[in-house]
C-alpha cells in the first residue's frame, strides 16, 4: 500500500504595531534591555486589565480579507488557560469559538488551493532563556499582537509548505502588518502531520503536532522526517496516536514532547474583561478598499502583459519593487519599450530601486536596444548604399511594388549590424526613393 501525507499548518505572525495588543507598552522588544517594556497589564499583575489595540484588529482583518476569509460580524476574545513560566496571567488572551476571520483560501504557484480555516487575534508570550538549571524570563515580548492563521489539512508535500510560507511572508510585508522575519521569530510555523493510505478520503484518526521548532528549515526537515517515520510505522502495522513532537537537530529526528494523555485542556471561555467586537460591513469595506494590489494579483496582471511567469513573480516579489516596475511600465509604454524587456532588465541587472528612477532604466533600455544609430545623416549614407547594392528592389518600389522596400530595410539593418532604427530607416528610404523617382 502507498501512503500520502496529510498536513495542516498554523502560522503565527507578530504584528508590527507601535504598542502591544492589550496595553500601550512599546511592542518593539527586539534586543531591548529585559523587562523594560512592561507594565501591570503585560506582566499580568493582580488587578490589571486588557484594552484592545484597534490597529491590531484592523491588521488581522486585512490579513483575513487578503486570504479570502469571511470577517465575523461578531467576534469575541477568549482565555486559553495553561501554565507556563512565559505566560504571566496563566492564560493567553486568544480566540477560539468566535474568531475574527473564518473560511478563506490561497492558491499556490502550482495552482493547488489551500483552504484557510481561520485567522484570529491573540497575544505573544514572554521569552525564556535556559541557563543551566535556571530559566530566565523577559516579558518585553509578552502581549505583542499575534495573528494565527490555521489551514485545513490540505498540504501533501513540503514543496507546498515552502510556497505557502513564502506567500504568507510576502503578503504580510505587502500589507505592511509585519516584518515577517523568520530568523527573528516574527513568523513561526507549526505543523500537524499524519499519513493515510492513498485514495482514502477520511482524515486519519490521529495527528502529530510539530511544535516549538524555531527555524523554518528545521520545520521542513521535521515534516519530512515525520512523513517517513509515520509511513514506515504504518507499513509495519503499528498504530500511531495523537502526540506533540519536537525536533532534535543534532540527531536530525523528531522526539516525543507530549503524549495524548498529557495533552493540554485549555478550558477556553469568553474573556470577561473585554466586551465583544461587532464589525459592521462599512468598516470591513473601508479596510478592503485600503488593501494594496496583492502580490498574486500583480503577477497575474504582469502575465497578461506577456511577461514570462517566473519574471512576473520576481518583479512582484515586494511591494516596493512592483511599484517601481509599474512606474517603469508606464514610461516604457510611452517610449515603446516592451514590458518583457523591462522585466528582463530588472531581473538581470537588479537595479537599486532606492537610488535609480524608473525613467532612468527606460532610457537605459532604449539606449542599449537602439545601439545609437538614429542619426539621420548616418542612416542616409547607409540607405544610399543599400539602394546601390539592390537596384532591382529600388526599381520595383518605384514601379509601385510597395513591399519591395522590405528588402532595402533589411539591407540597411545588415549594413548597420542591426543597430539602425527600423522606423526611421523606412522613412529615409521612402524619401530617397521618391526623390529619385521624381
Amino acid at each position, binding site marked *: 500500500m502507498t501512503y500520502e501525507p496529510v498536513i495542516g499548518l498554523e502560522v503565527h505572525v507578530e504584528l508590527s504595531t507601535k504598542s502591544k495588543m492589550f496595553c500601550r507598552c512599546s511592542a518593539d522588544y527586539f534586543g531591548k534591555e529585559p523587562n523594560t517594556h512592561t507594565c501591570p497589564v503585560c506582566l499580568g499583575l493582580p488587578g490589571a486589565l486588557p484594552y484592545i489595540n484597534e*490597529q491590531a484588529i484592523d491588521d488581522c482583518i486585512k490579513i483575513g480579507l487578503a486570504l479570502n476569509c469571511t470577517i465575523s460580524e461578531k467576534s469575541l476574545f477568549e482565555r486559553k488557560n495553561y501554565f507556563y513560566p512565559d505566560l504571566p496571567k496563566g492564560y493567553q488572551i486568544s480566540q477560539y469559538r468566535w474568531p475574527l476571520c473564518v473560511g478563506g483560501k490561497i492558491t499556490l504557484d502550482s495552482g493547488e488551493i489551500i483552504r484557510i480555516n481561520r485567522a484570529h487575534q491573540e497575544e505573544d508570550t514572554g521569552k525564556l532563556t535556559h541557563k543551566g538549571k535556571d530559566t530566565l524570563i523577559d516579558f518585553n515580548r509578552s502581549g505583542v499582537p499575534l495573528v494565527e492563521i490555521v489551514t485545513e489539512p490540505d498540504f501533501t508535500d513540503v514543496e507546498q509548505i515552502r510556497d505557502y510560507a513564502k506567500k504568507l511572508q510576502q503578503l504580510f510585508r505587502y500589507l505592511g502588518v509585519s516584518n515577517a522575519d523568520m530568523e527573528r521569530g516574527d513568523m513561526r510555523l507549526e505543523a500537524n502531520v499524519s499519513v493515510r493510505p492513498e485514495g482514502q478520503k477520511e482524515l486519519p484518526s490521529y495527528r502529530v503536532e510539530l511544535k516549538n521548532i524555531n527555524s523554518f528549515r528545521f520545520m521542513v526537515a521535521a515534516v519530512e522526517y515525520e512523513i517517513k517515520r509515520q509511513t514506515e510505522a504504518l507499513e509495519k502495522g503499528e498504530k500511531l496516536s495523537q502526540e506533540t513532537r519536537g525536533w532534535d537537530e543534532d540527531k536530525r529526528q523528531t522526539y516525543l514532547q507530549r503524549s495524548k494523555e498529557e495533552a493540554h485542556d485549555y478550558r477556553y471561555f469568553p474573556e470577561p474583561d473585554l466586551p*465583544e467586537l461587532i464589525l459592521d460591513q462599512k468598516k470591513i469595506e473601508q479596510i478592503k478598499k485600503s488593501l494594496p494590489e496583492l502580490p498574486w494579483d500583480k503577477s497575474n496582471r504582469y502575465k497578461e502583459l506577456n511577461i514570462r511567469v517566473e519574471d512576473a513573480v520576481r518583479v512582484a516579489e515586494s511591494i516596493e519593487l512592483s511599484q517601481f516596475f509599474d512606474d517603469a511600465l508606464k514610461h516604457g509604454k510611452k517610449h515603446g519599450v516592451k514590458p518583457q524587456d523591462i522585466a528582463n532588465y530588472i531581473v538581470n541587472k537588479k537595479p537599486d530601486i532606492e537610488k535609480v528612477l524608473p525613467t532612468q532604466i527606460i532610457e537605459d533600455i532604449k539606449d542599449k536596444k537602439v545601439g545609437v544609430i538614429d542619426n539621420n545623416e548616418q542612416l542616409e549614407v547607409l540607405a544610399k548604399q543599400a539602394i546601390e547594392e539592390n537596384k532591382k528592389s529600388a526599381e520595383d518600389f518605384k514601379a509601385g511594388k510597395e513591399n519591395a522596400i522590405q528588402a532595402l530595410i533589411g539591407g540597411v539593418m545588415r549594413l548597420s549590424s542591426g543597430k539602425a532604427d527600423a522606423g526611421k530607416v523606412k522613412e529615409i528610404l521612402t524619401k530617397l526613393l521618391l526623390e529619385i523617382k521624381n
Partner: protein
Amino acid sequence: MSLSRNQVKHVAKLANLPLTPQEEEKYSEQLSKILDYIDQLNSVDTSGVEPTFNVSGQENMMSEDKLGDCTISQEDTLSNTPKEERGFFVTKGVFEG
C-alpha cells in the same frame, strides 16, 4: 453528580493545585454536593436562549495604537520577585513544551 477521587486528582493537575490526600477526599465530597445543587440548571429549558457573557452593554472598546504611560521601570517590574538576575525573572528550569 459525584466526583471521584481520580477526577479530583485530574482536575487538580489541570489547575496546577497541589492537594494533600485529605484535601482530595474533602473536595471529592464537597464538590459532589455542590454539583448536585448546580445540576438543577439542566432542568431549565434554554432552547433558543442566547448566552450572556458580559453585562456591560459595551462593544468595540478599543484604543488607538500609540505608546501610553502605563510602562513601569525594570526595578518596579522585578520588585516582588523572589529571584532575579541581570534584569530577568528567574525560575527553576523548564523544558520547552
